[in-house]
């Protein structure tokens, strides 16, 4: 993927909850193909904040069909410059800088299959889940879908009505359960459980929601601790790792400490162009590449989105975080350049 930013017009803004808004974009006809997405993928929004360029990935919260608009759903995070800006400052008619859809956390519907699809979502983690759920309901008529969705209160549930409508429309296919950490005593809404999605809750959920179709897939999209807990529950009951798919949402990430690095000579295959440059000790590959005046694609800068992915051809790197990559991809040489530090004095890496 090349690093191209397009200016898109905001066509509609929908208030989902007190803290979350959906922003829709007009995609001009000539960019339709460029902006076609797979359910679960994200786009990157680029803002200029006090002269500094800031990029953040946001999941596309709709399924790519029925002429659905390209849309993201953003939960305002008090510490998040970009999310706060999007939730408070952006108006219909504004132009925003957007990078095309990207990401490997996707669900591709398989028409002639029957599967059991489990979704564990927390807060804004519902955004990829809802896109995947809609896609599967439309195009996998024999599959059964289970969604467990965690929020603070009933008022924080994003897409509450939309999920209710889907469950009504596909009663034999979709089962939605809610879990609330701070349920209001005055609310009419009664969740399946109060609390958080812990390991024990996940295990209890799985034993109640048993698969009929034996091709099971597990999608986890919540805060770091929830993801770790669900993963542990799944591993504990022998779910094969290749059936578990996860993406981190909304903080609580256990970021690893600094990793060891050495100064290195980097031979770069930059979209077919051969470039040599130096990487300093303690400098990420991404920063070294950008320091050389190149503009590789990147977005979240925390190892979640996978936008800065490249392929290592020789040498080795240490990665800080790599949630966007499956173990099997790492084994084949995939790296996240913004999280990678040279481990060997000579490196060869390719961007495609």
């Amino acid at each position: 993927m090349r690093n191209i930013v397009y200016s898109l017009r905001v066509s509609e803004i929908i208030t989902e909850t007190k803290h979350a808004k959906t922003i829709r974009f007009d995609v001009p006809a000539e960019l339709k193909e460029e902006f076609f997405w797979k359910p679960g993928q994200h786009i990157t929004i680029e803002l200029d904040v006090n002269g500094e360029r800031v990029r953040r990935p946001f999941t596309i919260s709709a399924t790519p069909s029925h002429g659905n608009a390209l849309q993201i759903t953003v939960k305002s995070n008090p510490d998040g410059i970009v999310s706060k800006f999007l939730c408070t400052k952006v108006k219909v008619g504004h132009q925003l800088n957007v990078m095309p859809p990207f990401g490997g956390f996707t669900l591709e519907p398989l028409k002639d299959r029957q599967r059991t699809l489990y979704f564990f979502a927390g807060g804004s983690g519902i955004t990829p889940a809802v896109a995947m759920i809609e896609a599967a309901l439309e195009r996998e008529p024999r599959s059964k879908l289970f969604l467990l969705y965690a929020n603070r209160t009933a008022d924080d549930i994003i897409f509450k009505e939309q999920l209710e409508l889907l469950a009504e429309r596909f009663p034999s296919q979709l089962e939605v359960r809610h879990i609330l950490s701070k349920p209001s005593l005055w609310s009419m809404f009664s969740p399946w459980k109060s609390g958080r999605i812990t390991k024990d809750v996940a295990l209890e959920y799985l034993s109640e929601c048993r698969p009929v179709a034996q091709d099971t897939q597990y999608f986890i999209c919540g805060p770091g601790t929830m993801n770790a807990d669900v993963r542990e529950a799944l591993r504990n009951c022998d779910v094969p790792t290749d059936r578990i798919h996860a993406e981190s949402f909304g903080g609580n990430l256990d970021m690893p400490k600094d990793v060891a690095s050495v100064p290195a000579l980097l031979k770069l295959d930059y979209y077919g162009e051969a470039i040599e440059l130096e990487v300093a000790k303690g400098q990420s590959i991404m920063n070294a590449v950008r320091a050389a005046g190149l503009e590789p694609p990147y977005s979240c800068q925390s190892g979640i989105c996978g936008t800065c992915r490249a392929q290592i051809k020789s040498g080795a790197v240490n990665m800080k975080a790599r949630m966007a990559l499956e173990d099997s991809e790492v084994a084949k040489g995939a790296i996240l350049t913004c999280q990678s530090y040279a481990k060997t004095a000579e490196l060869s890496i390719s961007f495609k």
Partner: protein
Amino acid sequence: MSTHSNGMPVLPKEAYTSQEWFDREQAEIFSKTWSLAGFQEDITEPGQYISVQAGLNNIFIVMGRDHRLRAFHNICRHRGTQLLRAEGKTQKAITCPYHDWTYDLKGNLISVPEQEKEFPGIDLSCNGLKKASVDIWRGMLWVHPDENAPSIINWFGEVEPYLAPYDPAGLIETEEGYSKHEIKANWKIIVENYIDGYHLSHLHSHTLNMYDHSKIECEFIGPHFAFWEPLADFYAAEVEKVTPMPLIPGIPKDKMGAWVPMLFPGIGLGESENSWSTFHITPIAPDRSMVEIRTRVANESTWAFTKAAMASASLWDKHLGAKFNAGPKVDPMSSGDFMQEDIYACEQQQKSLQSPFFEHGPSSKHGEKPVRDHQRVVAEWVERKP
């Protein structure tokens, strides 16, 4: 052989009598297709298992701790001993009775007695159980010997629109509806009997007359036979009142009747307005087959069943009966039971195949077309080049 414009059987007499044909069918048909292994409710807890013979393969299905089913070839990787017998509940591991080699529920070999002394340097990870495929379809368990089998939807998807419009998984099994019969006939003779529309109003003139055989809709969908016929008028008129068992919900009034497909190979379903059953034919020898019948009915109270039986008894006394009146002990044709009538017809046909005077007779244009079509499907599969 006589010639006849209406069509002649496709398969030779040997297809029903010779060991060679039997062996070829076991290898080419029954070892390469999805086999019925049971009902979904046969395995409900982690560690519980069943084993089934699917052609040349013995396969067991076990539920993992994630409640997902896994299927393995029932062969210890050491000397090949069968690991599990029939059905039961294991704990967390499967141990071979011969030398106590032990596998976990994921099929990994986890322990070999006296490993260091007897098998120095053995790599346990290369000796896991061989995987097969398992899935659930229409509330039934299915296995396929190939780990990478084509999806079960790929195999049955096209015939689904021709089946009853209700979900059999929502029904409950009834003990009265269970029976097992060893029939002295080749499996194809039993299939041919099952799909022969010509015999219904003759052999079963007094037993299956609650359906209107003049309005049969049937055809082959790929290798599977689809069949539907509506209720007979006298029954349809007041079906809610006179059904002998509670009706299964979800059937539109104009489709009320019987769906009786024969899925390939040899798995018949009987999906009706008030009961749902599997008719599973397993070949044992060229001239012998096992048929196991399991039945599910609407999930209603015992009282609802009693009430329906009482309310409808007088009507059915009038309409059902035996074709001949010699008494069932003397003549199976006077049993008043259509299953007995069919078994008798099949066994007599198999016997006659031994006679040097036997020759194939002409086959009827419409009613017996499915018989010829099934023979063509069988011929295609046994002649298939790998």
